[in-house]
């Protein structure tokens, strides 16, 4: 059973949609837990791993409203979005491990994962860095009249970056098929949103530029999915928008951060806003599945995700000769290595 955002059932609005969204969210949750494990086993490339636990509804809910041709960029906390979009968790994990089998052949890692096939124009390690690309993708969509939209996913912290406002202004001015999706997990590293701005109602800024703008609570993935559908439909009709999704960052900013700057009470409260648990309870309440069935589903997902670790560990590092590859197009000569140059020069001499 392999669920992707493109599963026909998801957009059917039927009861099975609840289950599909739950599955996507559970897969994200479990994948992220495995990323933590990869790190703990010292098999990740570095420690700059940003888990999206607590934000699964944003990823699953929004991507459910996207079409296959749509394009998007994400911030550094983008595993969940990419998975919800249908990424192969093995290739993702291999990339996070810096392996040749990864999406970017081990060069990009967690913060620079991308896949043109799925319209993923790239995660970004620069807060706000991937946002304006969406304006260009929107221009291209209009130029090609292909009916696609482009979505920028970013965190609340990115609202500190000027380039967001430049991009929003252009999108509104040109009525581009674009959505700005702000996943507001209340924190940028150690800074709570109210410590980063005097007005945390972030969508108001977008509205002032003439964008359709709204904030929704991320607890219920159905609410997110509905809002996303509305914004994607509007964008497709030339009415760009900004949708903020409120949630809570369950764990530290990156793998080594234990969030000592957070009040434990606040943290406990925040973790109660668990979209995966909420969805699970909904499914039970609606009588779609019972606990045992859901446990079985979860186990199946756990198994799938366990396999990503073994897969990653078994993969090869990128070959050293790939160092000079892909700086420029394959048709172009590779840059000369410093060592080669030195040898040549000292040989001349």
């Amino acid at each position, binding site marked *: 059973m392999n669920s992707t955002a493109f599963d026909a059932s998801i957009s059917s609005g039927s009861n099975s949609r609840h289950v599909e969204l739950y599955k996507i969210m559970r897969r994200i949750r479990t994948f992220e837990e495995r990323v933590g494990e990869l790190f703990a086993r010292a098999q990740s490339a570095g420690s700059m791993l940003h888990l999206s636990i607590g934000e699964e509804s944003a990823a699953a809910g929004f991507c459910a409203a996207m079409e296959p041709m749509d394009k998007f960029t994400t911030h550094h906390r983008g595993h969940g979005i990419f998975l919800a979009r249908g990424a192969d968790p093995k290739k993702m994990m291999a990339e996070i491990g810096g392996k040749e089998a990864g999406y970017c052949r081990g060069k990009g890692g967690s913060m620079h994962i*991308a896949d043109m096939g799925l319209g993923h124009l790239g995660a970004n390690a620069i807060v706000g860095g991937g946002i304006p690309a969406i304006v260009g993708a929107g*221009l291209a969509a209009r130029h090609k009249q292909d009916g696609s939209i482009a979505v920028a996913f970013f965190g609340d912290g990115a609202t500190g970056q000027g380039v967001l406002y430049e991009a929003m202004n252009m999108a509104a001015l040109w009525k581009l098929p674009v959505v700005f999706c702000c996943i507001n997990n209340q924190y940028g590293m150690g800074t709570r949103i109210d410590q980063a701005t005097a007005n945390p109602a972030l969508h108001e800024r977008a509205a002032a530029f003439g964008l359709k703008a709204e904030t929704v609570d991320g607890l219920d993935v159905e609410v997110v999915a509905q809002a996303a559908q509305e914004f994607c439909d509007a964008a497709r009709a030339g009415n760009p928008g900004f949708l903020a999704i409120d949630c809570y960052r369950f764990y530290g900013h990156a793998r080594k951060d234990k969030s000592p700057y957070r009040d434990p009470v606040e943290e406990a409260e925040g973790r109660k806003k668990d979209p995966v648990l909420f969805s699970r309870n909904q499914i039970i309440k609606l009588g779609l599945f019972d606990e045992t069935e859901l446990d079985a589903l979860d186990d199946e997902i756990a198994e799938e995700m366990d396999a990503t670790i073994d897969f990653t560990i078994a993969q090869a590092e990128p070959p050293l000769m790939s160092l000079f590859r892909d700086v420029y197009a394959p048709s172009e000569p590779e840059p000369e290595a410093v060592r080669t140059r030195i040898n040549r020069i000292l040989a001349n001499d």
Partner: protein
Amino acid sequence: MIEENIMIEMTYRDALRQALVDQMSQDSNVIILGEEVGRYGGAYGVTKNLIKEFGEERVIDTPISEAGIVGAAVGAAMSGLRPVVELMYVDFIGMTMDQLANQAAKIRYMFGGQIGVPMVVRTQGGTGRSAGAQHSQSLEAFIMHTPGLRLAMPATVNDAYHLLRQAMAQPDPVIFIEHKGLYTLKGEVDLNATPLPWGKAAVLRQGDDLVIVTYSRQVHYALEAAKKLAENGIEATIIDLRTLNPIDFETIRPHVERSGRAMVVTESVLTCGVAAELAARISEECFDFLHEPIVRVAGEDIPISVSPILEKGSVPNPQMIEETALKMFS
């Protein structure tokens, strides 16, 4: 299309414009994006009337948002368009450096070769209009120092045309820096001729005594100086680099080996600038042939003043090139 070569006299500005027109006519994915490129026709008139010819959807006036514009071009290039951004002054590149250096330059590599970013950023730099410290700089070294970005800087009218067309067909991001002092320069363009290949330097003058390696406006200054030097019996080879990434060292080498003396001339500020790279590279490659150190005639390590007399004193000029060459032989 006519098969024979036809030389047409035009200005550097018109040659650039013609390159845009011809490439846009040929490739419907080319769009132009920038401040005042449409209705205004470009701050220096290069995109004049293009909006009439190609429409608002392909010649797009933007708000004053340099970072956003360059970022939009990155996304457009990744989505199948061939954006040509006009950055009004190269001095504004500071606002775009994240999008250029962290995004455009690195995307192909970071993403393991999945995709390139075929975009062009046309801009202009240099002194000569009393435009002051924030509108007169020569910042090409920032680009040369960023792996992944190509860099072209045309000195002649013919190159204004052909290099720009080639830039617009490159698979990787190209920064294309014009010189504000050259827009009214007149010269002949052969629109149909096969141009020098992209990445190849041009030897504009041959002489056995000295090699002057330069580009952009200083090519003309060097040619002027070379004439005077010839009157003094010193024959200089003048090499116009045309592109600074890639750099065509193979064209430079034999000339330096022959004369054993080289001067590099640039408006780029001396320290860590283009002259540093050229001097270091020539020294490395031709060490055993050199009679003396490579001489760097470069922009002064200072900001540019609005005062015309101070502005002139901030960058090389023909007299300075000539005097320096004479000194090399004294």
